[in-house]
């Protein structure tokens, strides 16, 4: 067993050495450290920060946390799935390597890589102690916390990659396992101050906080920390990581004894596709709209009649919840009825595809974004989320505000929509590379640019539910934002800042999407995560430069006595620069993607 494990470990380490992505990630991490060091130095120089060491250490700690979380979603999730995808798992078994050997040999190099990446930082981070504001004990505690977190992430990634057939699915499983408790925690903490919160919830939150590395990091980084460097979180994560490894070992044979037959799942989705068309969904939407209108008009009256409370006293959030529930539950039911009633065309599937350039939109929408079923699920999901926000706000906070509801909707819609679009776009391009269909596609009588745009539109079309949610929230948020900006600054500057913010956010989303597309054409897995890291790096760098420019501008402005125009320019300069630089990056990436597609099509 040991021979097989060692062979696998050696291979894993060799592969990692050869992968440029790994080296790029390390360089990026080093880049972050240098940047944070520079900020700390700048802070100490300008006497802006009272404890530059602490701010330096904070930045490094949370960058590490983000890296480990993202690694859990990508780096560890391909541990076993990459062998499944390459169809080499059977060969490993035939070579006499037992499941334990395979698991150890596969996860070992990745875990060692991640832990070593953490370990090599340790001597350099001691600089934070020298700069002031941090104790040795805090540094040790943070790195032990993160080591435990890495073990947990490795365990999660491993079990997901044993269960799932594809890296994508494994990544989705781990992301859900990470994000759902985190989101739950955010929601609970958000309403924690409310006295109406049930007592049991506090216990759950306490229990969750043991598992929450964020809570442990907050505790360690607090002033006057004198706890043990090894906390409960470390033991909990170590135990959880080890347990997940053992479970992976126990279920390994069961999950991998039979190669995945894509035909079976394909047959099911084919049947669903045949029955559930976009036309059925469209018809169902038309049917559900009057029902929603009826709920909007009749709910308060019905509630008043049943409970006896005055019509005017029926809380507004209840109407919102009722509308959301009607849409979330009603739409699937109506769609299923329409699909069942609607006759199937004699010509089979011919004619379903949209003509000309829209054919690619149809293909991606149907086969990458889940088609009508995916759209239905998304409508229900986003409706439920909107209803949940209204419900939590109404029940636990005691009062419901349209602007707060809108802000939540806008925030969730924007983040979820961006991630969804990146995922769709990345997957649609990755699928073309994997199926070796780029050559066939580029031979259609249209340009690569038009092909790329069709893919973007295909991804956008799947965003209709998220888009509607963001738009509704966005309108109210924008009105409020402009009003607040006018109050805070003078009216012209305020409006300009809001506009600039919107432009920068849109451009950053574009950069993120383009990076995802580029990485999807370059690496086999983890393209969204890689794009996220790069965007984060770019954003942080930009933010720091912006702050510095503002400081320099303010100093310069006050020295010259500064007119109103100079003051506006000082406020605007970082924004204008940010827009200019991001725009250049957007254009450069666009051309890089185009040329990459051309190259891959010529090579395939």
């Amino acid at each position, binding site marked *: 067993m040991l021979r097989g494990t060692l062979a696998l470990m050696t291979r894993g380490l060799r592969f990692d050495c050869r992968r440029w992505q790994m080296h790029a990630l390390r360089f990026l991490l080093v880049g972050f450290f240098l940047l944070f060091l520079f900020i700390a130095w700048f802070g100490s120089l300008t006497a802006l920060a009272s404890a530059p060491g602490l701010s330096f250490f904070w930045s490094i700690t949370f960058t590490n946390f983000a890296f480990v979380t993202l690694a859990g979603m990508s780096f560890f999730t391909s541990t076993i799935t990459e062998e499944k995808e390459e169809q080499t798992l059977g060969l490993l078994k035939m070579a006499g390597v037992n499941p334990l050997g395979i698991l150890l040999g596969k996860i070992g190099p990745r875990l060692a890589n991640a832990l070593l990446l953490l370990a090599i930082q340790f001597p350099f981070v001691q600089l934070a102690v020298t700069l002031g504001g941090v104790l040795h004990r805090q540094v040790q505690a943070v790195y032990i916390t993160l080591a435990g977190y890495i073990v947990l992430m490795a365990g999660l990634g491993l079990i997901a990659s044993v269960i799932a057939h594809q890296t994508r699915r494994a990544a989705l499983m781990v992301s859900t396992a990470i994000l759902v408790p985190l989101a739950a925690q955010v929601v609970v903490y958000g309403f924690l101050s409310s006295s109406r919160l049930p007592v049991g919830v506090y216990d759950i939150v306490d229990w969750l906080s043991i598992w929450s590395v964020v809570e442990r990091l907050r505790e360690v980084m607090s002033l006057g920390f004198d706890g043990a460097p090894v906390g409960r979180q470390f033991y909990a994560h170590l135990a959880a990581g080890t347990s997940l490894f053992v479970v992976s070992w126990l279920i390994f044979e069961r999950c991998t004894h039979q190669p995945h037959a894509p035909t079976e799942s394909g047959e099911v989705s084919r049947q669903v596709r045949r029955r559930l068309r976009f036309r059925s969904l469209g018809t169902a939407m038309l049917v559900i709209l009057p029902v929603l209108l009826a709920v909007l008009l009749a709910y308060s009256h019905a509630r008043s009649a049943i409970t006896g409370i005055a019509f005017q006293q029926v809380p507004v959030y209840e109407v919102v919840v009722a509308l959301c529930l009607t849409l979330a539950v009603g739409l699937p039911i109506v769609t299923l009825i329409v699909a069942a009633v609607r006759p199937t065309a004699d010509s089979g599937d011919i004619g379903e595809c949209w003509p000309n350039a829209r054919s690619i939109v149809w293909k991606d929408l149907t086969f990458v974004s889940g088609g009508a079923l995916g759209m239905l699920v998304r409508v229900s999901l986003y409706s439920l989320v909107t209803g949940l926000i209204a419900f939590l706000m109404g029940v636990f906070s005691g009062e419901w505000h349209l602007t707060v509801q809108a802000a939540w909707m806008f925030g969730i819609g924007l983040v979820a929509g961006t991630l969804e679009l990146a995922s769709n776009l990345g997957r649609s391009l990755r699928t073309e590379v994997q199926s070796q269909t780029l050559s066939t596609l580029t031979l259609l*009588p249209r340009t690569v640019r038009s092909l790329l745009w069709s893919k973007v539109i295909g991804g956008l079309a799947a965003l209709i539910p998220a888009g509607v949610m963001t738009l509704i929230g966005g309108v109210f948020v924008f009105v409020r934002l402009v009003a607040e900006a006018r109050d805070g600054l003078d009216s012209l500057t305020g409006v300009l800042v809001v506009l600039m913010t919107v432009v920068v956010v849109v451009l950053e989303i574009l950069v993120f999407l383009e990076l995802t597309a580029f990485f999807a054409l370059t690496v086999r897995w983890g393209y969204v995560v890689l794009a996220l890291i790069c965007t984060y790096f770019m954003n942080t760098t930009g933010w720091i430069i912006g702050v510095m420019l503002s400081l320099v501008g303010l100093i310069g402005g006050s020295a010259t006595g500064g007119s109103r125009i100079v003051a506006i320019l000082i406020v605007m300069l970082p924004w204008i620069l940010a827009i200019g630089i991001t725009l250049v990056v957007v254009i450069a990436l666009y051309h890089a993607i185009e040329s990459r597609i051309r190259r891959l099509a010529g090579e395939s």
Partner: protein
Amino acid sequence: MNDVTPQLPAGSPADPDAGATDVETTDQAPDGSSPVASPDPSHQPTTEPQRFLPADEVAIDVRDLSHRFGNHLAVERVSFQVTPRSLHGFVGPNGAGKTTVLKLICTLLRPQSGSVHVHGKDVDRQTKEVRRQIGFMPDHFSMYRQMTVTEYLDFFAAAYGLNVADRQRVIGDVLALTDMDGRRDSLISGLSRGMQQRVGLARVLVNDPDLLLLDEPASGLDPRARIELMEILRALRQMGKTIFISSHILSELAELCDSVTIIDRGHIRYSGGMRDLLKQDSDAAVYRLTLSEEQPGIEDRLLGLDEVMSAERIEGSLEFRIRCNPGSETDNRLLAAVLGLEIPIESFQKELRHLNEAFMDLTEQGVR
């Protein structure tokens, strides 16, 4: 909108022999010489000026085409022509530059020097028009495995801008031609290799291209699937399509193709009619005569004929190998002379070289 109307073999107006005849005449340059031939592999490719037909009179016109990948020169000053409605073989060892030339013709790569014209249209400048006229089948399965056969074909037909009525007709036709009618609702992932190859061919046909570029279409297929594929290609030629096929399976190419281009190490070694290539070397024409019964002194009688240089019996048989001086009338004169001997003849045929032999003679040993 394309008017796509693939005709089935039964309704094909094309004369089955027309393509071959065309090739026979047009493979020869106007002065009667073979367009490109460099039989001796030790020699560099011919550098003497070749005479080509105008680009708009041929299906494919490749002139002085060179392409480099980094430091590696994949093809160097390649020139050849393919006549319309012919089945043209493109053969060469691994790494000879076949796929590169195919990709240059089908617009996947841009020519770095030289020119490529498809039906008179420059692939570099009139890319869109060229793409409408060609159908390219790569050497790998370029398929969306999660689609059904009809969904796959419907997608490509829609992408070429066909309306729903046309799509139904065309998809029906191509499925019938490729004999995939019974599997139209099957998922592509569940199809065998041979069937996937048929779907690939059906996809190539949905936009009714004049020129089909097929890269190793028979690679990895079992003998039955290979034979069936060749039948489909014959049917397509009868429909008037020009087929440019790159393949390693020389025996089938010899049977199938009207003309052939042999490429080796990025250089064209031969381009011309298949029969010209398969003819014996130029110093003698070889015939095989089989008698139905033994004739005493037959060797001497054969040697006595004016046309015959040598006649040898194939050991233990009634077969004779007769070598004659080559010439345009040799076939008829020798046949007349043999008939004049009044011997019981079972068969009389001209002996052609096998394509394998020609290929081995024209290409160099070793891999690139």
